[in-house]
C-alpha cells in the first residue's frame, strides 16, 4: 500500500508529568460510569460502510494520526473521592482489531490502552464504539468522519493527493461543559424525569451478552413523502411507527394501564448555540397510553406528534436542563463521597429505568464532503441495551438513504417486523440486514 506522506501530522507534544491535563465529567457523563455494566454497557456504535474492504494497517495509521487532534477522546476515566474525572491519556492509540464482539460491548477501562472508545473493522465496515461518558452522538460522528477521511487519504493517496492530512476545516473542538455554562438559577419549576412505569417489552432473551441487530435501509425521499402524509417530520414518523408497532405487536392492540413511552434524546446545541464535543442533550418521552379499545395508525401518529411537540420547546428543555444540573451544583450533595453518590445514583436510575419502553435516537445526516463521499456506501448508528429497555432504535442518513437500526436483546422480531411492514406499506422501499444472531 502506498501511503501518503504522514509527516504532516501534528508534532507530538510531550506533556510533563506534573502538568497532565484533567477534566471534570459533564453533567450527563456523571451517570454513565456508575450504571455501566457488561449487560448495560452505555456504549454506542457508529459505523461507516465503505465501498471497498478496509485495510487494518491503514486504519490504524489513520487512528494514530487523528486521535492526537481530538482531546475529548484522549482521556481515561479515574475515580476521585467525590467525583469521577477524566485524565489526559498519552498512551499510543488503541489497537484497531477485527470485529470480535457484539455491537456495543462493554469497554473495559483498564484495557484498550485505557481509552474509552474502540475502533474495529470487518470487511467493508469501520466501527467506532464510544462510551457515552465521553461524548454523545455529535462527538462520535465528528470522530468517525475524521477517521474515515484520514483513512481514505491514506488508502487512496493518488486520488486524494490534494487533500491535507488534518482535521476538516469548520470542525469545532470545543470541550466546554455546556450544561454548566447554560445553567441559570431560575424561578422556573424544574422538570424532573418521570418515574411512572411504562410498558416494558419483555420476552425470550438471546444468549448472555448477545445483541441482535436489524438494519433497515430506506430512501429518505420516500420516507419524507410518507411522513408528510401524516403531517409529521421523519423523526416523528419513525417514533410514532415504532410506538404503533409496540401497541399492535406487544400489547396486541389492547388497552394498558401503563403508557408506551419512547425516549427521544434532544440535541441541545442548536437551542443554546453550543458546539461542544462533550455530551449536551436531554431526554424527552413520546407517550401513548392506549386507553380505548382500538387505535388506528393515524391516531397514534397524531398522539405521538402532539406529545413530542409539547415537550420539545425551548422552555421545557430549559426546565429539564435546570433539573439535571441543579443536583450537581448543590454544595451539600457535592460533599457526599463517590461511593455513596454511586449508590444514590443507581437507586434513582433504577427507579426511573422502567419509565420508558425504548429509546429512539436520530443522529442526523452523515454525508461526507467531496471528494470522499463516493467511497462510502452508508453509515449505521446503534445503541446498547439499558435497564428496562430491551429494544432500542437509532437512525442516521447518508447519500439519501436512511438507515434505521434496531438493537435488541430479545429473540422475537415481531416489533421490528411490524415497524418495517408499516413503513413498506406506505410505499417506502425497504431492505433489511441482520447481524445473524437470529439464525442458528
Amino acid at each position: 500500500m502506498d501511503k501518503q506522506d504522514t509527516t504532516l501530522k501534528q508534532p507530538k507534544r510531550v506533556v510533563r508529568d506534573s502538568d497532565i491535563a484533567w477534566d471534570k465529567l459533564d453533567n450527563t457523563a456523571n451517570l454513565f460510569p456508575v450504571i455501566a455494566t457488561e449487560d448495560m454497557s452505555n456504549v454506542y456504535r457508529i459505523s461507516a460502510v465503505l465501498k471497498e474492504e478496509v485495510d487494518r494497517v491503514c486504519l490504524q495509521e489513520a487512528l494514530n494520526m487523528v486521535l492526537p487532534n481530538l482531546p475529548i477522546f484522549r482521556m481515561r476515566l479515574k475515580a476521585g473521592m467525590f467525583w469521577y474525572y477524566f485524565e489526559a491519556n498519552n498512551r499510543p492509540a488503541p489497537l484497531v482489531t477485527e470485529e470480535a464482539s457484539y455491537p456495543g460491548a462493554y469497554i473495559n477501562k483498564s484495557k484498550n490502552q485505557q481509552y474509552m472508545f474502540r475502533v474495529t473493522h470487518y470487511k467493508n465496515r469501520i466501527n467506532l464504539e464510544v462510551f457515552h461518558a465521553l461524548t454523545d452522538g455529535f462527538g462520535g460522528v465528528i470522530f468517525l468522519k475524521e477517521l474515515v477521511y484520514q483513512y481514505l487519504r491514506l488508502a487512496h493517496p493518488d486520488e486524494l493527493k490534494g487533500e491535507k492530512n488534518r482535521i476538516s476545516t469548520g470542525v469545532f473542538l470545543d470541550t466546554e461543559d455546556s450544561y454548566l455554562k447554560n445553567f441559570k438559577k431560575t424561578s422556573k419549576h424544574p422538570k424532573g424525569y418521570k418515574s411512572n412505569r411504562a410498558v416494558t417489552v419483555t420476552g425470550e432473551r438471546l444468549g448472555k451478552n448477545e445483541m441482535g441487530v436489524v438494519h433497515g435501509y430506506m430512501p429518505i425521499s420516500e420516507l419524507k413523502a410518507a411522513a408528510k402524509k401524516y403531517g409529521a417530520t421523519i423523526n416523528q414518523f419513525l417514533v410514532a411507527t415504532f410506538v404503533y408497532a409496540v401497541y399492535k405487536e406487544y400489547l396486541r392492540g389492547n388497552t394498558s394501564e401503563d403508557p408506551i413511552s419512547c425516549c427521544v434524546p434532544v440535541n441541545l446545541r442548536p437551542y443554546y448555540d453550543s458546539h461542544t464535543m462533550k455530551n449536551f442533550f436531554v431526554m424527552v418521552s413520546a407517550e401513548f397510553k392506549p386507553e380505548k379499545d382500538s387505535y388506528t395508525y393515524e391516531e397514534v401518529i397524531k398522539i405521538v406528534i402532539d406529545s413530542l411537540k409539547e415537550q420539545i420547546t425551548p422552555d421545557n428543555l430549559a426546565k429539564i436542563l435546570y433539573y439535571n444540573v441543579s443536583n450537581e451544583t448543590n454544595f451539600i450533595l457535592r460533599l457526599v463521597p463517590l461511593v455513596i453518590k454511586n449508590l444514590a445514583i443507581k437507586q434513582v436510575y433504577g427507579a426511573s429505568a422502567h419509565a420508558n419502553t425504548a429509546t429512539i435516537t436520530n443522529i442526523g445526516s452523515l454525508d461526507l464532503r467531496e471528494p470522499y463521499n463516493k467511497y462510502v456506501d452508508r453509515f449505521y448508528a446503534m445503541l446498547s441495551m439499558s435497564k428496562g429497555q430491551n429494544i432500542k432504535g437509532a437512525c442516521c442518513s447518508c447519500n439519501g438513504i436512511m438507515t434505521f437500526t434496531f438493537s435488541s436483546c430479545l429473540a422475537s422480531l415481531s416489533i421490528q417486523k411490524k415497524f418495517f411492514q408499516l413503513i413498506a406499506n406506505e410505499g417506502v422501499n425497504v431492505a433489511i440486514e441482520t447481524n445473524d444472531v437470529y439464525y442458528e
Partner: protein
Amino acid sequence: MYRCDNCNITIYDNVDVCPLCHQVIDDISEEEEAKVIKTFGAPSPYPDVRKITKRTELAMKLIVFLSIIAEAILIVINYFTTPKIMWSLVSGLAFVYFLFSLRYWISHDSGFAIKLGIQITLTMIILAVIDHFTGSKGWSFEWAIPGIILFGDAMALFLMMLNRQRWYSYTMFLLYMELLSIAVMVLHGFNKITNIVMPITCIALSSLFMLATIIFGDRAFYREFRRRFRV
C-alpha cells in the same frame, strides 16, 4: 439477496425464510439485486462472534468445574483421614479466593492500584478467617496482616519506579497502606497485637514512603491530591 412478499421488503441475509415473518422466501434476480445494491449499497455482513464468546465462557466454566471437583475430593479425603480437623474448609476458602481473584483481575475494569488494594484487603480478611478456623492463635494479626502491608508498601515503591511517568497514580494506594498501618498500630494499642515490631515497622515504612512522595513529588503530588479530592 431475497424478497419477502409478505413483509414487502428486500432481505440482504443469506436465508431461506424471512427473519421477520418466517415466510419461505425466494432469491431475487441478478438484475434486481444490482438495482438494490445501487440504491442501498452492498451487504455488510457481521462476523460470527458467538463462537469466540463461547470459547471464553467455556474456559471460565471449566476452571469453576475443576475447582468444585478438587474441593469435593479434598472434603472426602479430609473426612476419611482427619475427621476432627476440618482443613478442607481452608482449601475451600482458598478455591473461592482464587476464583474470585481470577474473575476480578480478568474482567473488572478498575485500575491496577485499586485492584491491588482490594486484593490486599481480601487477602487480609481470608487470612484472619483461616486463623479463626484453625484455633485463633493470632498469627494473622501478629505477622500475616502486617506482612501484607509491608508487601503493599514494597509494591507501591516498585510500581512507582516501574511506571515513572505516572508514579503519582499510586499515591492513593500508598495512602491506603498508611491508613492500614495506623489501623495495625491501633490494634496494638488495644492489645490485639502484642508484638510491637511489626506495627512499628509498618507505620515507619509507610510514613517514610509517604513523606518521600510528598517532598519529592512536589507539584505532581498536590495535583493528584487535588484531582482525587475535588469536591
